[in-house]
């Protein structure tokens, strides 16, 4: 897609003076006001804006929490309770931050699934997609380290289990784990470094988000039809007011959902055991990660071999980065791919079920015939793991070769207004209204 030319015209003398020295107003105007947006975007395209809001919300509440938190094994748990009980609105800041992490992941999962359904990872958006995978990885690292900070039982044992994943690396594994811990077990040095990195990573996410948006604005947005913009007049509308108002409306709806959790069920997504101070001598009976890590945890436990489980878990995330090359179909949008749709929705259901297996005890019976256990949670997770990888390694490469896609619309305008020349286009006002 061609870069559109800047339509910024400095109005005042000061703007002209500044524009000649630092064209920052021009940058904002070109990327958030006059930037052309495909006219057929649906509400799934509002989650990028929602995610930016969540990132800012997490950074603001996080900075405030740090003003009252103490990163030391003897005081961390107490200082969190101090925030909850003594600090003015401390409860609000902490509940916003803790639930905000969950909201962030809800939004990012919708954002990722949207990209997967509409083929947003395909050329020329591969780099945009990979930057998104990098952001996702950074988010997971940030969320994991943040969960350790309250130093409850789940914090401690979550940290122990996850850092021990690295001990599966042959030869140097144990050395790496001691280096990560800064001691012989998860202890004060571990808490301190996690705190330092938990503060750093959101700003790194911010940096990669800038690259992500830059890449997006360079290649242009995908759209539900997956057809490229051909005629800017007919196929696009200006970012402001169309996308800004729609994004803001979606953001408000999302905030209502967020507020519902914060004010009515702030501990619903958490785990009660994290209100017990960390005890290195006692593991909780049933240890589970936060909900957003459950599918990966399900995959980890599905493989009976330690190294194999760790490799499968990391591979399940890393494989996302290869999506642009695994999907061989020339058609971008899943809307026009009948068999892809079946594979995609199977993948979504399997991902959710993997999360379910991750939340259950390993020896729980899934299928029993005549009192004999035919399948337990591990066996079930193994089948799901096979389907999960099958989507990437079998379904996507093959479907592109054997599937017969439906006819694509001639243009984005056609996809919303019907075939061109029908007369509707005159009244539809594709060009931005002049102020």
């Amino acid at each position, binding site marked *: 897609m061609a870069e559109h030319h800047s339509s910024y015209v400095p109005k005042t003398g000061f703007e002209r003076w500044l524009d000649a020295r630092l064209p920052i107003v021009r940058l904002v105007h070109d990327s958030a006001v006059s930037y052309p947006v495909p006219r057929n975007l649906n509400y799934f395209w509002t989650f990028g804006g929602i995610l930016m809001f969540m990132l800012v919300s997490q950074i603001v509440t996080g900075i405030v929490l740090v003003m009252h938190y103490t990163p030391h094994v003897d005081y961390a748990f107490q200082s969190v309770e101090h925030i909850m009980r003594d600090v003015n609105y401390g409860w609000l800041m902490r509940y916003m931050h803790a639930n905000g992490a969950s909201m962030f992941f809800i939004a990012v999962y919708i954002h990722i699934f949207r990209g997967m359904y509409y083929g947003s990872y395909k050329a020329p958006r591969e780099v945009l997609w990979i930057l998104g995978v990098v952001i996702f990885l950074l988010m997971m690292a940030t969320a994991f380290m943040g969960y350790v900070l309250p130093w409850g039982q789940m914090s401690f*044992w979550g940290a*122990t*289990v996850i850092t*021990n994943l690295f001990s599966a690396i042959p030869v140097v594994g144990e050395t790496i784990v001691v*280096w990560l811990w800064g001691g012989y*077990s998860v202890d004060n040095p571990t808490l301190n470094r996690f705190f330092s990195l938990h503060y750093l990573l959101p700003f790194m996410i911010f940096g990669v988000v800038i690259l992500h948006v830059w890449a997006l604005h360079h290649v242009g947005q995908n759209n539900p039809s997956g057809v490229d913009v051909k005629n800017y007049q007919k196929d696009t509308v200006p970012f402001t007011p169309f996308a800004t108002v729609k994004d803001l409306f979606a953001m408000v709806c999302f905030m209502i959902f967020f507020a519902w959790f914060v004010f009515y069920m702030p501990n619903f997504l958490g785990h009660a055991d994290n209100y017990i101070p960390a005890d*290195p*001598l006692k*593991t909780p009976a049933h240890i589970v990660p936060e909900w957003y890590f459950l599918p990966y945890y399900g995959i980890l436990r599905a493989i009976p071999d330690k190294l194999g489980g760790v490799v499968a878990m990391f591979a399940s995330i890393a494989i996302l980065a290869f999506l642009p090359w695994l999907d061989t179909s020339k058609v971008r949008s899943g809307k026009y791919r009948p068999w892809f749709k079946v594979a995609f929705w199977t993948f979504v259901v399997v991902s959710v079920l993997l999360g379910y297996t991750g939340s259950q005890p*390993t020896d729980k019976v899934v299928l029993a015939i005549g009192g004999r256990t035919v399948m337990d949670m591990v066996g079930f997770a193994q089948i799901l793991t096979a389907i999960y990888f099958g989507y990437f390694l079998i379904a996507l490469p093959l479907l592109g070769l054997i599937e017969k896609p439906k006819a694509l619309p001639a243009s984005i305008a056609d996809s919303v207004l019907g075939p061109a020349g029908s007369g509707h286009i005159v009244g539809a006002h594709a060009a931005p209204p002049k102020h």
Partner: protein
Amino acid sequence: MADQSMSEPNRRDFLFLATGAAGAVAVGGVAWPLISQMSPDASTIAAGAPVEVDLAPIAEGRAITLKWRGKPIFVRHRTAAEIEASKKDDKSGLPDPQPDAVRVRAFEGKAQEQWVVVYGNCTHLGCVPIGFSGDYNGWYCPCHGSHYDNAGRIRKGPAPRNLDIPEFAFLSASKIRIG
């Protein structure tokens, strides 16, 4: 002229390489402290000094958990029947084959079979297994379902190895030093 400078290294080439090499050493010199600072510090290492444990209060058939270097260590006083059961399994296809005799230490040339001393962290992902439970009445890890026998050997589940044995020695028949 051009040919000469291509074929024969001159002073400029030497300076270019020497500067590059010095720069690489400087980068490595700065990177190493940044990496090394994350390793266990002097106070952590000092706090991990060896400890002596009196075994006399531990009755036969009982076990204690002590904390050393931030980790639990199980000291289990096995009964004659338990030792017998463990020895019987020496050749029954263990995932990490180790005879019972290798799992215990000796004092003055005499194997102290009744004492099993192991790290209390599952070799899978580090959870603390529960004593006197599981299919082999040794330890059972509630996190991912690993079963150990009374010598701390892995018998069933995802753990790759037997429970690790810390470095320890008998100072007398009823006293050990760990570390």
